[in-house]
Protein backbone atom coordinates (compact mmCIF):
# COMPACT_ATOMS: atom_id res chain seq x y z
CA UNK A 1 0.00 0.00 0.00
CA UNK A 2 2.74 2.39 1.03
CA UNK A 3 4.39 1.37 -2.20
CA UNK A 4 1.51 2.64 -4.29
CA UNK A 5 1.24 5.76 -2.22
CA UNK A 6 4.91 6.34 -2.81
CA UNK A 7 4.47 5.96 -6.57
CA UNK A 8 1.69 8.51 -6.59
CA UNK A 9 3.60 11.00 -4.44
CA UNK A 10 6.66 10.70 -6.67
CA UNK A 11 4.38 11.11 -9.69
CA UNK A 12 2.87 14.30 -8.30
CA UNK A 13 6.34 15.68 -7.66
CA UNK A 14 7.42 14.80 -11.22
CA UNK A 15 4.20 16.42 -12.42
CA UNK A 16 5.27 19.71 -10.83
CA UNK A 17 8.20 19.81 -13.22
CA UNK A 18 6.00 18.98 -16.21
CA UNK A 19 3.54 21.67 -15.18
CA UNK A 20 6.40 24.15 -15.06
CA UNK A 21 7.45 23.07 -18.58
CA UNK A 22 3.90 23.39 -19.84
CA UNK A 23 2.75 26.71 -18.38
CA UNK A 24 4.91 28.82 -20.69
CA UNK A 25 3.55 26.90 -23.67
CA UNK A 26 0.02 27.29 -22.38
CA UNK A 27 0.46 31.05 -21.98
CA UNK A 28 1.87 31.58 -25.48
CA UNK A 29 -0.79 29.41 -27.07
CA UNK A 30 -3.57 30.96 -25.01
CA UNK A 31 -2.78 34.58 -25.80
CA UNK A 32 -1.77 34.40 -29.47
CA UNK A 33 -2.68 30.91 -30.71
CA UNK A 34 0.99 30.43 -31.47
CA UNK A 35 2.37 26.91 -31.27
CA UNK A 36 5.94 27.37 -30.17
CA UNK A 37 7.78 24.24 -31.34
CA UNK A 38 11.02 25.64 -29.92
CA UNK A 39 9.60 25.58 -26.39
CA UNK A 40 11.59 22.56 -25.21
CA UNK A 41 14.80 23.92 -26.68
CA UNK A 42 14.31 27.24 -24.92
CA UNK A 43 14.03 25.34 -21.64
CA UNK A 44 17.31 23.56 -22.42
CA UNK A 45 18.85 26.89 -23.45
CA UNK A 46 17.82 28.33 -20.09
CA UNK A 47 19.30 25.30 -18.31
CA UNK A 48 22.63 25.81 -20.07
CA UNK A 49 22.47 29.51 -19.39
CA UNK A 50 22.06 28.80 -15.68
CA UNK A 51 24.83 26.17 -15.86
CA UNK A 52 27.25 28.67 -17.40
CA UNK A 53 26.35 31.38 -14.91
CA UNK A 54 26.94 29.02 -11.99
CA UNK A 55 30.35 28.12 -13.42
CA UNK A 56 31.25 31.76 -14.15
CA UNK A 57 30.05 33.20 -10.84
CA UNK A 58 32.04 30.74 -8.75
CA UNK A 59 29.75 31.25 -5.75
CA UNK A 60 29.16 28.54 -3.14
CA UNK A 61 27.14 25.70 -4.68
CA UNK A 62 24.25 26.10 -2.28
CA UNK A 63 23.41 29.64 -3.46
CA UNK A 64 24.86 29.77 -6.99
CA UNK A 65 21.87 28.20 -8.84
CA UNK A 66 19.43 30.58 -7.13
CA UNK A 67 21.59 33.62 -7.94
CA UNK A 68 21.81 32.38 -11.53
CA UNK A 69 18.02 32.04 -11.63
CA UNK A 70 17.64 35.57 -10.29
CA UNK A 71 19.94 36.93 -13.00
CA UNK A 72 18.30 34.89 -15.75
CA UNK A 73 14.72 35.97 -14.99
CA UNK A 74 15.07 39.54 -16.35
CA UNK A 75 17.34 38.32 -19.16
CA UNK A 76 14.72 35.73 -20.09
CA UNK A 77 11.92 38.28 -20.00
CA UNK A 78 13.87 40.62 -22.31
CA UNK A 79 14.73 37.72 -24.64
CA UNK A 80 11.11 36.62 -24.85
CA UNK A 81 9.94 40.19 -25.44
CA UNK A 82 12.49 40.75 -28.20
CA UNK A 83 11.90 37.38 -29.83
CA UNK A 84 8.17 38.02 -30.07
CA UNK A 85 8.40 41.67 -31.04
CA UNK A 86 11.04 41.35 -33.73
CA UNK A 87 10.68 37.78 -35.01
CA UNK A 88 7.48 35.94 -34.12
CA UNK A 89 4.99 38.82 -34.50
CA UNK A 90 5.84 38.83 -38.20
CA UNK A 91 4.78 35.20 -38.55
CA UNK A 92 1.30 35.55 -37.07
CA UNK A 93 -1.75 35.64 -39.26
CA UNK A 94 -4.65 33.54 -40.37
CA UNK A 95 -2.24 30.87 -41.58
CA UNK A 96 -0.68 28.90 -38.67
CA UNK A 97 2.09 27.52 -40.89
CA UNK A 98 4.61 30.43 -40.87
CA UNK A 99 4.84 30.49 -37.07
CA UNK A 100 5.24 26.69 -36.94
CA UNK A 101 8.01 26.76 -39.53
CA UNK A 102 9.82 29.69 -37.92
CA UNK A 103 9.73 28.25 -34.37
CA UNK A 104 10.79 24.88 -35.78
CA UNK A 105 13.73 26.64 -37.44
CA UNK A 106 14.57 28.46 -34.20
CA UNK A 107 14.50 25.09 -32.41
CA UNK A 108 17.09 23.68 -34.82
CA UNK A 109 19.28 26.76 -34.47
CA UNK A 110 19.15 26.65 -30.65
CA UNK A 111 19.91 22.91 -30.55
CA UNK A 112 22.89 23.17 -32.87
CA UNK A 113 24.21 26.29 -31.22
CA UNK A 114 24.16 24.52 -27.86
CA UNK A 115 25.80 21.47 -29.41
CA UNK A 116 28.51 23.68 -30.88
CA UNK A 117 29.24 25.55 -27.66
CA UNK A 118 28.74 22.82 -25.04
CA UNK A 119 29.29 19.62 -27.11
CA UNK A 120 26.80 16.77 -26.76
CA UNK A 121 27.92 15.89 -23.21
CA UNK A 122 25.19 16.03 -20.60
CA UNK A 123 25.72 18.63 -17.84
CA UNK A 124 24.13 19.26 -14.52
CA UNK A 125 23.88 22.31 -12.28
CA UNK A 126 25.57 21.60 -8.95
CA UNK A 127 23.47 22.57 -5.96
CA UNK A 128 25.49 21.25 -3.02
CA UNK A 129 23.59 17.98 -2.79
CA UNK A 130 20.12 19.54 -2.93
CA UNK A 131 19.23 17.24 -5.84
CA UNK A 132 19.81 14.14 -3.71
CA UNK A 133 18.59 15.45 -0.34
CA UNK A 134 15.28 14.08 0.90
CA UNK A 135 12.83 14.42 3.72
CA UNK A 136 11.48 11.32 5.45
CA UNK A 137 7.72 11.24 5.99
CA UNK A 138 5.58 8.91 8.09
CA UNK A 139 4.90 5.42 6.76
CA UNK A 140 8.34 4.88 5.29
CA UNK A 141 7.87 7.52 2.59
CA UNK A 142 10.62 9.87 1.58
CA UNK A 143 10.31 12.83 -0.76
CA UNK A 144 13.17 14.61 -2.50
CA UNK A 145 13.76 18.15 -1.25
CA UNK A 146 14.34 19.58 -4.72
CA UNK A 147 11.21 17.97 -6.26
CA UNK A 148 9.16 19.45 -3.40
CA UNK A 149 10.70 22.88 -4.10
CA UNK A 150 9.94 22.45 -7.81
CA UNK A 151 6.33 21.48 -7.16
CA UNK A 152 5.90 24.44 -4.79
CA UNK A 153 7.31 26.82 -7.39
CA UNK A 154 5.00 25.31 -10.03
CA UNK A 155 1.96 25.78 -7.79
CA UNK A 156 3.03 29.33 -6.89
CA UNK A 157 3.58 30.17 -10.57
CA UNK A 158 0.16 28.76 -11.53
CA UNK A 159 -1.53 30.86 -8.85
CA UNK A 160 0.47 33.97 -9.76
CA UNK A 161 -0.18 33.63 -13.49
CA UNK A 162 -3.88 32.91 -13.02
CA UNK A 163 -4.13 35.95 -10.77
CA UNK A 164 -2.28 38.08 -13.33
CA UNK A 165 -4.71 36.98 -16.02
CA UNK A 166 -7.88 37.33 -13.95
CA UNK A 167 -7.29 40.46 -11.90
CA UNK A 168 -4.84 42.86 -13.52
CA UNK A 169 -5.17 45.30 -16.43
CA UNK A 170 -2.37 43.44 -18.20
CA UNK A 171 -4.23 40.14 -17.83
CA UNK A 172 -7.34 41.82 -19.18
CA UNK A 173 -5.33 42.96 -22.19
CA UNK A 174 -3.99 39.41 -22.68
CA UNK A 175 -7.52 38.01 -22.70
CA UNK A 176 -8.83 40.78 -24.93
CA UNK A 177 -6.20 40.33 -27.67
CA UNK A 178 -6.80 36.60 -27.45
CA UNK A 179 -10.56 37.08 -27.95
CA UNK A 180 -10.45 39.62 -30.76
CA UNK A 181 -7.24 41.25 -31.88
CA UNK A 182 -8.84 43.82 -34.21
CA UNK A 183 -11.31 44.96 -31.58
CA UNK A 184 -8.48 45.25 -29.04
CA UNK A 185 -6.61 47.45 -31.49
CA UNK A 186 -9.68 49.64 -31.83
CA UNK A 187 -9.46 50.19 -28.06
CA UNK A 188 -6.01 51.65 -28.51
CA UNK A 189 -4.14 48.53 -27.49
CA UNK A 190 -0.91 47.80 -29.35
CA UNK A 191 -1.20 44.06 -29.84
CA UNK A 192 2.45 43.72 -30.87
CA UNK A 193 3.48 45.03 -27.47
CA UNK A 194 0.90 42.91 -25.62
CA UNK A 195 2.03 39.77 -27.48
CA UNK A 196 5.66 40.57 -26.69
CA UNK A 197 4.83 40.98 -22.98
CA UNK A 198 3.04 37.61 -23.04
CA UNK A 199 6.10 35.90 -24.46
CA UNK A 200 8.22 37.76 -21.90
CA UNK A 201 6.13 36.23 -19.11
CA UNK A 202 6.30 32.82 -20.79
CA UNK A 203 10.08 33.14 -20.72
CA UNK A 204 10.01 33.77 -16.99
CA UNK A 205 8.36 30.35 -16.70
CA UNK A 206 10.84 28.86 -19.18
CA UNK A 207 13.80 30.20 -17.17
CA UNK A 208 12.39 28.71 -13.95
CA UNK A 209 11.72 25.40 -15.67
CA UNK A 210 15.16 25.25 -17.29
CA UNK A 211 17.15 26.16 -14.19
CA UNK A 212 15.27 23.73 -11.94
CA UNK A 213 15.42 20.98 -14.54
CA UNK A 214 19.19 21.44 -14.81
CA UNK A 215 19.48 21.19 -11.03
CA UNK A 216 17.32 18.08 -10.85
CA UNK A 217 18.94 16.04 -13.59
CA UNK A 218 21.45 16.16 -16.41
CA UNK A 219 20.69 18.12 -19.56
CA UNK A 220 22.09 17.68 -23.06
CA UNK A 221 21.58 19.98 -26.08
CA UNK A 222 19.33 17.48 -27.89
CA UNK A 223 16.86 17.05 -24.99
CA UNK A 224 14.49 19.84 -26.06
CA UNK A 225 12.01 17.94 -28.26
CA UNK A 226 11.23 15.46 -25.46
CA UNK A 227 10.39 18.35 -23.12
CA UNK A 228 8.25 19.92 -25.84
CA UNK A 229 6.27 16.69 -26.07
CA UNK A 230 5.69 16.57 -22.29
CA UNK A 231 4.62 20.23 -22.34
CA UNK A 232 2.13 19.60 -25.13
CA UNK A 233 0.71 16.58 -23.35
CA UNK A 234 0.31 18.44 -20.08
CA UNK A 235 -1.37 21.42 -21.80
CA UNK A 236 -3.81 19.19 -23.70
CA UNK A 237 -4.60 16.93 -20.75
CA UNK A 238 -5.26 19.97 -18.57
CA UNK A 239 -7.31 21.91 -21.10
CA UNK A 240 -6.41 25.15 -22.85
CA UNK A 241 -6.84 28.50 -21.27
CA UNK A 242 -6.34 27.94 -17.56
CA UNK A 243 -3.11 27.67 -15.60
CA UNK A 244 -4.74 25.45 -12.98
CA UNK A 245 -5.70 23.13 -15.82
CA UNK A 246 -2.12 23.04 -17.02
CA UNK A 247 -0.93 22.36 -13.46
CA UNK A 248 -3.43 19.50 -13.20
CA UNK A 249 -2.38 18.23 -16.64
CA UNK A 250 1.27 18.16 -15.61
CA UNK A 251 0.45 16.27 -12.44
CA UNK A 252 -1.75 13.73 -14.26
CA UNK A 253 1.08 13.16 -16.73
CA UNK A 254 3.62 12.81 -13.91
CA UNK A 255 1.49 10.35 -11.96
CA UNK A 256 0.74 8.16 -15.00
CA UNK A 257 4.41 8.09 -15.95
CA UNK A 258 5.36 7.17 -12.39
CA UNK A 259 2.84 4.32 -12.37
CA UNK A 260 4.16 3.13 -15.74
CA UNK A 261 7.73 3.24 -14.47
CA UNK A 262 6.66 1.07 -11.55
CA UNK A 263 5.53 -1.73 -13.83
CA UNK A 264 8.55 -1.52 -16.06
CA UNK A 265 11.21 1.17 -16.33
CA UNK A 266 10.75 1.15 -20.11
CA UNK A 267 7.01 1.81 -19.89
CA UNK A 268 6.75 5.08 -18.02
CA UNK A 269 6.93 7.52 -20.92
CA UNK A 270 4.83 5.20 -23.07
CA UNK A 271 2.03 4.96 -20.51
CA UNK A 272 2.09 8.78 -20.32
CA UNK A 273 1.57 8.98 -24.10
CA UNK A 274 -1.26 6.44 -23.91
CA UNK A 275 -3.10 8.38 -21.23
CA UNK A 276 -2.62 11.54 -23.26
CA UNK A 277 -4.14 9.83 -26.31
CA UNK A 278 -6.98 8.40 -24.23
CA UNK A 279 -7.84 11.87 -22.88
CA UNK A 280 -7.64 13.31 -26.39
CA UNK A 281 -10.23 10.71 -27.46
CA UNK A 282 -12.53 10.80 -24.44
CA UNK A 283 -12.28 14.43 -23.34
CA UNK A 284 -10.62 16.47 -26.08
CA UNK A 285 -11.34 19.75 -24.28
CA UNK A 286 -9.10 18.60 -21.40
CA UNK A 287 -9.74 18.25 -17.69
CA UNK A 288 -10.24 21.90 -16.74
CA UNK A 289 -11.01 23.87 -19.89
CA UNK A 290 -11.62 27.61 -19.71
CA UNK A 291 -14.89 28.01 -17.91
CA UNK A 292 -16.28 31.11 -19.57
Amino acid at each position, binding site marked *: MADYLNTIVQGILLGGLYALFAMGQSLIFGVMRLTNTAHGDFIILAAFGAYSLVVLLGLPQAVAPWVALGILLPVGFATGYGLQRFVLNGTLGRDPLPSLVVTFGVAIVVQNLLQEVYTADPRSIESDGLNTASVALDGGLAVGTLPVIILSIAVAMAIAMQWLFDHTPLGRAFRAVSDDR*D*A*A*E*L*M*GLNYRHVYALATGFAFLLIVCAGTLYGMKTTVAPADGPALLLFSFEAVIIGGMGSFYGTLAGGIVLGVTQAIGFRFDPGWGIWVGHMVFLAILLVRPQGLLP*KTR
Partner: protein
Amino acid sequence: MALLSTFGLESFYGDFQALFGIDFEVESGEIAAIIGANGAGKSTFLKTVCGLLKAGPDKIVFDGQAIGGIAPGRIVQRGIAMVPEGRRLFASLSVEENLLMGACAKRSGAWDLDAIYALFPMLKDRSGSPATALSGGEQQMTAIGRALMSNPRLLICDELSLGLGPMIIKEIYAALPRICSEGMTAIVVEQDVSMAKQISSRLYCLQEGRVTLSGPSNQLTMEQISLAYFGV
Protein backbone atom coordinates in the same frame (compact mmCIF):
# COMPACT_ATOMS: atom_id res chain seq x y z
CA MET B 1 -14.78 73.92 -39.44
CA ALA B 2 -15.37 70.25 -40.10
CA LEU B 3 -14.14 67.89 -37.38
CA LEU B 4 -13.58 65.07 -39.83
CA SER B 5 -13.28 65.28 -43.58
CA THR B 6 -12.21 62.84 -46.22
CA PHE B 7 -11.02 63.84 -49.68
CA GLY B 8 -11.35 61.36 -52.52
CA LEU B 9 -10.95 58.49 -50.06
CA GLU B 10 -10.27 55.13 -51.65
CA SER B 11 -10.08 51.75 -49.98
CA PHE B 12 -9.13 48.26 -51.05
CA TYR B 13 -9.54 44.68 -49.87
CA GLY B 14 -6.47 43.21 -51.54
CA ASP B 15 -6.94 43.98 -55.24
CA PHE B 16 -10.63 44.67 -54.86
CA GLN B 17 -11.47 48.35 -54.69
CA ALA B 18 -14.35 49.02 -52.29
CA LEU B 19 -14.39 52.82 -52.10
CA PHE B 20 -14.00 55.20 -55.04
CA GLY B 21 -13.22 58.75 -54.03
CA ILE B 22 -15.44 59.45 -51.02
CA ASP B 23 -15.75 63.12 -50.04
CA PHE B 24 -17.24 63.32 -46.59
CA GLU B 25 -17.55 65.93 -43.89
CA VAL B 26 -18.96 66.07 -40.39
CA GLU B 27 -19.08 69.27 -38.35
CA SER B 28 -18.24 69.37 -34.70
CA GLY B 29 -21.27 68.51 -32.52
CA GLU B 30 -23.24 67.16 -35.47
CA ILE B 31 -24.61 63.65 -36.13
CA ALA B 32 -24.01 62.41 -39.65
CA ALA B 33 -25.78 59.31 -40.91
CA ILE B 34 -24.62 57.05 -43.69
CA ILE B 35 -27.14 54.89 -45.48
CA GLY B 36 -26.88 52.53 -48.40
CA ALA B 37 -27.61 48.98 -49.49
CA ASN B 38 -25.54 45.98 -48.41
CA GLY B 39 -22.10 46.14 -50.00
CA ALA B 40 -22.34 49.88 -50.67
CA GLY B 41 -19.16 50.48 -48.68
CA LYS B 42 -20.57 51.93 -45.44
CA SER B 43 -18.65 49.66 -43.09
CA THR B 44 -15.58 49.87 -45.30
CA PHE B 45 -15.70 53.64 -45.00
CA LEU B 46 -15.88 53.48 -41.20
CA LYS B 47 -13.10 50.89 -41.00
CA THR B 48 -10.90 53.05 -43.18
CA VAL B 49 -11.51 56.12 -41.01
CA CYS B 50 -10.62 54.07 -37.91
CA GLY B 51 -7.41 52.83 -39.45
CA LEU B 52 -8.38 49.16 -39.77
CA LEU B 53 -8.00 49.53 -43.53
CA LYS B 54 -5.18 51.42 -45.23
CA ALA B 55 -5.72 54.96 -46.48
CA GLY B 56 -3.60 57.57 -48.19
CA PRO B 57 -1.94 59.91 -45.63
CA ASP B 58 -3.77 63.15 -46.46
CA LYS B 59 -7.09 61.58 -47.52
CA ILE B 60 -8.49 61.78 -43.99
CA VAL B 61 -8.26 64.94 -41.91
CA PHE B 62 -9.38 64.92 -38.28
CA ASP B 63 -9.35 68.15 -36.29
CA GLY B 64 -7.02 69.76 -38.81
CA GLN B 65 -4.52 66.91 -38.86
CA ALA B 66 -3.98 64.25 -41.53
CA ILE B 67 -4.62 60.83 -39.98
CA GLY B 68 -4.74 58.57 -43.05
CA GLY B 69 -2.67 55.39 -42.69
CA ILE B 70 -2.18 55.74 -38.93
CA ALA B 71 -2.63 52.58 -36.80
CA PRO B 72 -6.07 52.17 -35.19
CA GLY B 73 -4.53 52.35 -31.72
CA ARG B 74 -3.16 55.82 -32.46
CA ILE B 75 -6.40 57.00 -34.00
CA VAL B 76 -8.40 56.17 -30.88
CA GLN B 77 -5.84 58.09 -28.84
CA ARG B 78 -6.56 61.12 -31.01
CA GLY B 79 -10.24 60.83 -30.19
CA ILE B 80 -12.10 58.65 -32.68
CA ALA B 81 -13.88 55.68 -31.11
CA MET B 82 -15.73 52.95 -32.93
CA VAL B 83 -18.71 50.81 -32.03
CA PRO B 84 -17.98 48.02 -34.50
CA GLU B 85 -20.52 46.12 -36.54
CA GLY B 86 -21.66 43.04 -34.63
CA ARG B 87 -20.45 44.70 -31.39
CA ARG B 88 -17.25 42.63 -31.13
CA LEU B 89 -17.29 42.44 -27.34
CA PHE B 90 -14.50 40.47 -25.67
CA ALA B 91 -16.08 37.11 -24.89
CA SER B 92 -13.87 36.13 -21.98
CA LEU B 93 -14.20 39.51 -20.25
CA SER B 94 -17.00 40.61 -17.96
CA VAL B 95 -19.15 43.61 -18.84
CA GLU B 96 -17.13 45.89 -16.57
CA GLU B 97 -13.84 44.56 -17.94
CA ASN B 98 -15.12 45.21 -21.46
CA LEU B 99 -15.90 48.79 -20.48
CA LEU B 100 -12.47 49.19 -18.90
CA MET B 101 -10.85 48.02 -22.13
CA GLY B 102 -12.34 51.11 -23.72
CA ALA B 103 -10.28 53.25 -21.37
CA CYS B 104 -6.99 51.84 -22.71
CA ALA B 105 -6.45 54.95 -24.81
CA LYS B 106 -6.14 56.94 -21.54
CA ARG B 107 -7.94 60.06 -22.74
CA SER B 108 -9.38 62.19 -19.98
CA GLY B 109 -12.95 63.38 -19.94
CA ALA B 110 -16.40 62.99 -18.44
CA TRP B 111 -16.98 59.35 -19.40
CA ASP B 112 -16.03 56.82 -16.77
CA LEU B 113 -17.68 53.68 -15.38
CA ASP B 114 -20.16 55.71 -13.30
CA ALA B 115 -21.19 57.85 -16.26
CA ILE B 116 -21.74 54.77 -18.43
CA TYR B 117 -23.81 53.09 -15.70
CA ALA B 118 -25.86 56.28 -15.37
CA LEU B 119 -26.48 56.26 -19.13
CA PHE B 120 -27.37 52.55 -19.25
CA PRO B 121 -28.50 51.56 -15.73
CA MET B 122 -29.18 47.96 -16.69
CA LEU B 123 -25.47 47.42 -17.31
CA LYS B 124 -24.69 48.11 -13.68
CA ASP B 125 -26.65 45.05 -12.55
CA ARG B 126 -24.84 42.93 -15.09
CA SER B 127 -21.36 44.37 -14.55
CA GLY B 128 -19.88 41.07 -13.37
CA SER B 129 -21.47 38.82 -16.00
CA PRO B 130 -19.55 37.61 -19.00
CA ALA B 131 -20.33 39.80 -22.02
CA THR B 132 -21.67 36.77 -23.88
CA ALA B 133 -24.39 36.22 -21.25
CA LEU B 134 -26.13 39.52 -22.10
CA SER B 135 -29.07 40.09 -24.41
CA GLY B 136 -28.35 41.66 -27.78
CA GLY B 137 -29.50 45.07 -26.59
CA GLU B 138 -27.37 44.94 -23.46
CA GLN B 139 -24.42 43.87 -25.56
CA GLN B 140 -24.94 46.86 -27.82
CA MET B 141 -25.08 49.16 -24.80
CA THR B 142 -21.84 47.64 -23.55
CA ALA B 143 -20.25 48.22 -26.94
CA ILE B 144 -21.36 51.86 -26.94
CA GLY B 145 -20.20 52.28 -23.36
CA ARG B 146 -16.85 50.73 -24.20
CA ALA B 147 -16.35 53.19 -27.06
CA LEU B 148 -17.38 56.13 -24.85
CA MET B 149 -14.87 55.09 -22.17
CA SER B 150 -12.10 56.41 -24.43
CA ASN B 151 -13.70 59.88 -24.17
CA PRO B 152 -13.77 60.35 -27.91
CA ARG B 153 -14.52 63.56 -29.78
CA LEU B 154 -15.97 61.52 -32.63
CA LEU B 155 -18.09 58.43 -32.01
CA ILE B 156 -18.52 56.08 -34.95
CA CYS B 157 -21.40 53.60 -34.77
CA ASP B 158 -21.71 50.79 -37.28
CA GLU B 159 -25.25 49.38 -37.55
CA LEU B 160 -26.38 49.85 -33.97
CA SER B 161 -29.72 48.21 -34.74
CA LEU B 162 -28.28 45.04 -36.29
CA GLY B 163 -30.16 42.03 -34.96
CA LEU B 164 -32.08 43.98 -32.30
CA GLY B 165 -35.80 44.29 -31.65
CA PRO B 166 -37.64 47.58 -32.38
CA MET B 167 -38.12 48.47 -28.69
CA ILE B 168 -34.48 48.15 -27.81
CA ILE B 169 -33.45 50.03 -30.97
CA LYS B 170 -35.58 52.96 -29.85
CA GLU B 171 -34.03 52.85 -26.42
CA ILE B 172 -30.51 52.84 -27.80
CA TYR B 173 -31.17 55.68 -30.22
CA ALA B 174 -32.78 57.63 -27.41
CA ALA B 175 -29.40 57.63 -25.70
CA LEU B 176 -27.64 59.17 -28.69
CA PRO B 177 -28.79 62.78 -28.21
CA ARG B 178 -27.83 62.52 -24.52
CA ILE B 179 -24.38 61.33 -25.52
CA CYS B 180 -23.99 64.11 -28.07
CA SER B 181 -25.34 66.82 -25.80
CA GLU B 182 -21.84 67.07 -24.33
CA GLY B 183 -20.57 68.28 -27.69
CA MET B 184 -19.65 64.88 -29.05
CA THR B 185 -19.77 64.36 -32.80
CA ALA B 186 -21.11 61.11 -34.24
CA ILE B 187 -21.19 59.20 -37.49
CA VAL B 188 -23.88 56.54 -37.64
CA VAL B 189 -24.38 53.85 -40.23
CA GLU B 190 -27.99 52.77 -40.27
CA GLN B 191 -30.11 50.43 -42.41
CA ASP B 192 -33.37 52.06 -41.40
CA VAL B 193 -33.58 55.14 -43.62
CA SER B 194 -36.29 56.97 -41.71
CA MET B 195 -34.44 56.40 -38.43
CA ALA B 196 -31.25 57.69 -40.06
CA LYS B 197 -33.04 60.79 -41.32
CA GLN B 198 -34.64 61.45 -37.98
CA ILE B 199 -31.52 61.28 -35.80
CA SER B 200 -29.00 62.97 -38.07
CA SER B 201 -28.44 66.49 -39.27
CA ARG B 202 -26.53 65.43 -42.34
CA LEU B 203 -27.10 62.40 -44.50
CA TYR B 204 -24.85 60.54 -46.91
CA CYS B 205 -26.02 57.82 -49.23
CA LEU B 206 -23.46 55.38 -50.60
CA GLN B 207 -23.80 53.08 -53.54
CA GLU B 208 -21.10 50.78 -54.87
CA GLY B 209 -18.36 52.68 -53.10
CA ARG B 210 -19.42 56.17 -54.20
CA VAL B 211 -21.43 58.96 -52.58
CA THR B 212 -24.64 59.21 -54.58
CA LEU B 213 -26.39 61.76 -52.38
CA SER B 214 -25.50 64.04 -49.51
CA GLY B 215 -27.07 66.97 -47.78
CA PRO B 216 -28.90 68.21 -44.68
CA SER B 217 -31.16 65.40 -43.48
CA ASN B 218 -34.28 67.56 -43.19
CA GLN B 219 -34.01 68.87 -46.74
CA LEU B 220 -33.61 65.57 -48.55
CA THR B 221 -36.85 64.01 -49.74
CA MET B 222 -37.61 60.30 -49.59
CA GLU B 223 -37.72 60.25 -53.43
CA GLN B 224 -34.22 61.67 -53.72
CA ILE B 225 -33.03 59.15 -51.16
CA SER B 226 -34.59 56.11 -52.78
CA LEU B 227 -33.20 57.20 -56.14
CA ALA B 228 -29.72 57.48 -54.64
CA TYR B 229 -30.17 54.30 -52.62
CA PHE B 230 -31.16 52.03 -55.47
CA GLY B 231 -29.53 54.02 -58.26
CA VAL B 232 -32.20 53.28 -60.84
